[in-house]
Each structure stands twice: as structure tokens, then as C-alpha cells.
């Protein structure tokens, strides 16, 4: 491809002319230039006005961190204040908020200089990128010592210390009241849980199923229909056995029942008769055969003995 020297030369001239005007002004402002002490935050605001189309290269900004042995850059924020009209045409104002911290322990009043830095702007166009550098100048502030260099002599070295601050005595009364109130609430809640779970004093005595069965037998003794009453009496004693064991006790389960509840062992024979009679009554020939095998007085005597063992247990 044939090179055309003229347009390139024109472009270079244009670029060179533009470069001078790209950064229009750099201005550093600080709230005050004096009255700083050891550890104070030193704030500054840098306004940079550039030609329209340029934007800040964030990578060119100083990194927060130690800047010198006595100076840290704590924070840096950038605000783009946008385009503004000036007499020389469209421009753009970028404002940097810098927060330094001073660690210089001064013995007398002296001026310190915060170093300057350069910030790069770039303009990306169709023909490529153009960069411009804004040089932020160094600026200084004055710091003051915290105390006299040579204080007046004291007898007691403790006197060099400032006296302790006085603290008002706190009234603990309301706290005690609050603690007491919440403790009693907790006890109430514990009582509720204990009642729900049947702990401690709320563990009521175990039900007395055989006692209930005996009571029912006494009621049934006066029933007119003796045959049906006998069946109900057998059922009542069955329910007593079931409730005592926590499961359904069949005739074949008697040895297991006696192993789990040894108190009833003396009545093993009578219990066997009862279960045999119940078998005859409900599953076999009928109630009449059962009554012949285990008459009512024997049944009631057994119920009484079972209830007595249950009370004693």
C-alpha cells in the first residue's frame, strides 16, 4: 500500500496542538492548612478540568496505603461532575476526594508536604486512544505538637498523668428487678413444661386399671342380664391387663406378662383361669361354658386381689 505522507503530518500537528489544551486546570483545596495533630485525618479535594471526551484512568490513581513513613492515604473517591461549558468550549470536571492520615509526632510547629502525583486521562476515539497526564502538585500543611516539649518538673511522677475521669454510679436496682422478673417467668415456663412432660411433682400416680375394673365389676353385679354382665366383666379385666402391660395381652402372653410384672405372680393360676374363661366366652362355646369354668364370685375375688396388688405395687 502506498503511503500518503500529507494527511499523516496534518494528523500529527492536530494531535500536538490538542495535547497542550487537554488538561485545562488542576486545583487542590484543603479545608485548612494548619491545626493538625498526630493521627488527624487530612482531607483534600482535587478538581481537574479536562477536555470533553477524556475520562479518568482509574489505574493511574494513587493506591490507598502508606505514602511515606509518616503518611497514609486512607481513602480516595472519584466524582465525575460531568461536562461544563467554559469560554474555551466543552470541558469535563473530575473531582478527587483524598483522605490522608498524619502520623508525624511533631515537637514543634512545622510544615509538612504531601507529595504530588500524576493522573492519566484517556480519550478513546475511532482513530485510537489519546492520553493526557494531569500533574497534581504537592501541597503542604502545618502540624502542631500535642504537648509542651519540656513540662514543668513535678515531685511525684504520677502527677504527670491526668487524673481519671469520674463516672456516675449506675443504679443496679432496676436491673435486679428485671432479672428477678425474668427468672420467675422462666420458672413459670419450666413449671409449664414439667406439667406437659409429667416431670417431678406433676408425675401423677400411675392409673389403676385393675381398680377401675373392680369398680366396674361392682356396678355389673347389680345388672339384670347376668350373662351379658359376665362378658362385660371379662372385658373390663382384659382392659385392665392391657393397660397394666401397655399392650394387648392374649392368653399365650401370660408368662411374659408375669415376667414383666412379678407382683402378680402369686395369682398366676387365677389369671390363667381368667384368660381361659375369656377364651371360652368370646372365641369358643360361649359365655355359659365360661361361667361354669370361672363363676362370678371367683372372678370378683380375682379382681379384688389384682386391685389390691396394684395398690401395693
Amino acid at each position, binding site marked *: 500500500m502506498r503511503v500518503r505522507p500529507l494527511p499523516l503530518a496534518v494528523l500529527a500537528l492536530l494531535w500536538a496542538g490538542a495535547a497542550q489544551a487537554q488538561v485545562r486546570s488542576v486545583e487542590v483545596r484543603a479545608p485548612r492548612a494548619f491545626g493538625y495533630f498526630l493521627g488527624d485525618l487530612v482531607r483534600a479535594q482535587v478538581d481537574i478540568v479536562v477536555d470533553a471526551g477524556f475520562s479518568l484512568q482509574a489505574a493511574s490513581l494513587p493506591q490507598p496505603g502508606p505514602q511515606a513513613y509518616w503518611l497514609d492515604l486512607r481513602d480516595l473517591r472519584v466524582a465525575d461532575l460531568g461536562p461544563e461549558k467554559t469560554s474555551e468550549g466543552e470541558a469535563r470536571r473530575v473531582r478527587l476526594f483524598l483522605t490522608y492520615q498524619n502520623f508525624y509526632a511533631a515537637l514543634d510547629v512545622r510544615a509538612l508536604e504531601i507529595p504530588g502525583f500524576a493522573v492519566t486521562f484517556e480519550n478513546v476515539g475511532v482513530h485510537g486512544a489519546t492520553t493526557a497526564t494531569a500533574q497534581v502538585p504537592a501541597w503542604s500543611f502545618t502540624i502542631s505538637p500535642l504537648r509542651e516539649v519540656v513540662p514543668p518538673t513535678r515531685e511525684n511522677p504520677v502527677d504527670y498523668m491526668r487524673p481519671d475521669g469520674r463516672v456516675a454510679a449506675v443504679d443496679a436496682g432496676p436491673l435486679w428487678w428485671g432479672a428477678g422478673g425474668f427468672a420467675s417467668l422462666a420458672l413459670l415456663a419450666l413449671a409449664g413444661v414439667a406439667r406437659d412432660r409429667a416431670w417431678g411433682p406433676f408425675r401423677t400416680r400411675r392409673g389403676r386399671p385393675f381398680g377401675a375394673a373392680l369398680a366396674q365389676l361392682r356396678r355389673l353385679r347389680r345388672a339384670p342380664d347376668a350373662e351379658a354382665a359376665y362378658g362385660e366383666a*371379662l*372385658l373390663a379385666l*382384659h*382392659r385392665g391387663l*392391657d393397660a397394666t402391660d*401397655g*399392650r*394387648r*395381652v*392374649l*392368653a*399365650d402372653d401370660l408368662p411374659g406378662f408375669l415376667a414383666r410384672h412379678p407382683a402378680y405372680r402369686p395369682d398366676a393360676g387365677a389369671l390363667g383361669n381368667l384368660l381361659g374363661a*375369656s*377364651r371360652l*366366652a*368370646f*372365641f*369358643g*362355646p360361649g359365655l355359659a361354658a365360661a361361667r361354669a369354668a370361672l363363676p362370678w364370685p371367683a372372678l370378683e375375688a380375682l379382681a379384688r386381689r389384682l386391685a389390691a396388688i396394684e395398690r401395693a405395687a
Partner: protein
Amino acid sequence: MNETRPGDAMLTDWRQAAVRFERAVSGAVVGQDRAIRLLTIAIFARGHVLLEGDVGVGKTTLLRAVARALGGAYERVEGTVDMMPTDLVYHTYLAEDGRPRVEPGPVLRRAEDLSIFFFNEINRARPQVHSLLLRLMAERSLTAFNREYRFPNLQVFADRNRVEREETFELPAAARDRFLMEIGLEAPRDAESRRALVFDPRFHDTDALIDGIAADVLDHAAIPGIARAIQHGVQASPAIETYVVGLWEALVRPGGAGIRLSGIDMDALVQGGASPRGVAFLVRAAKVRAWLENRTFLVPEDIRAVFPDVMAHRVFLEPVYEMRRATIVPDLCRAVFDTVPAP
């Protein structure tokens, strides 16, 4: 048996025969008294039995012992992946004269006389074979060679091992439901039986062991008749009917019956199953147990004795719980019996 004797005496004679049968089998298979009792019940209830257990606990030996003591024709097949239903019915081969021949297979070979058909490792056979078994088990008949074969005395015994899952086919629910019992077999727990099984040379040679059993202790041809007599002879009172229906309801809807098992949502545990056929089987087996215990009426203990083996495999759990079936179902059965009032 002597038909002129009164029914009660006949039942008594048969009870003694059943005891002799149990004794003969338990002479060869030690430490499995419960399984032998259940098998006896199944024989007199005319039900098919599926034995389940680990490898080498004696499933096959037990069934062979029962088959020998029971008498009658006995056929045995081994389930394999490539077995087809026709393999049970036909046997095709080239005869010595070079012509193809078709002959009856294991099921038909002994025809009407067949009393025990023993299906080893049933879960290795394909579902096609299972469905042939369905009809054989439910109707005791089979259509082949353009005619219908009937097997009035047939009982199907099957076994499967619980360990292997590869190349096996789960039995369909319909097939499992047709088995009267699914008996779980475990190696005996007591030290004496274990010592004997391991050190007594008598138990090492299975064939000799089986041959040592008195053959034909029971007259297999008469068993269907005696089974009917038992079912009529043992009475079920209204109380036991209520009890069985209560058990059934509690098994199918444990949440509603007030059963609680820890860590299980009782309302979403049982998906279905526990068919009416299953409950009818339960009562049939319980009646046989009552007869074996020398009673003329059913009691709740009879139901309880056969319940896990008759009912457990008919309950279908929600898929979430199916993998834990082996622990959940026994707990559920126990809880059902602890909950439903007996008389």
C-alpha cells in the same frame, strides 16, 4: 383314611400324622421349628409357600425334606434368566432317530399326580415365567397340548435368596399375593444347633440326610379333603371376626388406628395391599393352626402366629419406606397386635 369314622376322630388321626410329619422333617432340618410349623400349616391350608433367606441357611434342604415326607410326585426346576414359560411345559429334543420330539416338561410330566412343584431361585426367572406360575398357583390348571391339565394336589414351593439383586426379577405383586406365606428363614441362633450343623457329618451330605427321612408320612392325595374338613371343623366366633377385621383395618390405615412408629409418617406409610384374598388366607392358615393346637375354635393367638408370614408380604409401602421394609413391616405388625383389642 377311614371314611366311616366320625369326622372328629379323623381330624384327630390326621393331627397325629401332622405331628409325625413335623417330627420327621425336624429330624433332618434342625433349629427351624417355626418354619416347619408354618410349612405344615401351609400344607393343610393348601397354600403355596415362598421361602426367603440368606444363602446356605437350608431353604432347599427344608423344601426337599418336606417334599419327601409329604410323598407324591415331585418336580423341581431352577430359575434362570433365560428360562421361558415353555421350558416348564414342553421339552423338545432330537431323538436317536434324528427326528425332533416334543415331550411334556417338568410341570406336565407327572400330570395329575404332581403334588409338589418346587421352584428354586424363583427371582432369577423372568416375569413371563412368573405369569405362567400365576395360573398354576391360582387355578391349579394349565392348558397345553390342546387340552387342560388339572393338578388337584399341587402345591408350589419356591425359594429365593435375599442377598443378590443382579440379574433377578422382582416378583410381581399379583404373584406374591398368590403365595399363602412368605417365610423368612434364618440360620438357627442357639449354639447347640449351630454346632451340630457345622460339625455333625450327618448334615454335610444333604442327599443322605433327605433319604433318612421317612417317606410318605402323609397321604398327599387325601390332604385336599382333610383341608376342607379342617376349614369346616374349626369355628370362628363373632369376636374373632371383629378382631380380624380390626387387624386388617389397622394394618392398612395404621395412622387412623392410633399406631405411631418413630420417624415415620403413619398416614403416608402404607400404599395398599393386604387384599381380601390375603385376609382370607390368614383365616385359613389360622384355622389350621387352631386344629394343630387341638382346638375347635379360633383364638387371637392363632391369627398372631401366622400373621407376619401371611400378611407382611402383601403390604405395599410408599416408595420412600420400601427400602427399609425389612425393619418397618415387622414393627408395624407388632404395633398392630399391641393396639387392636383382643376380645
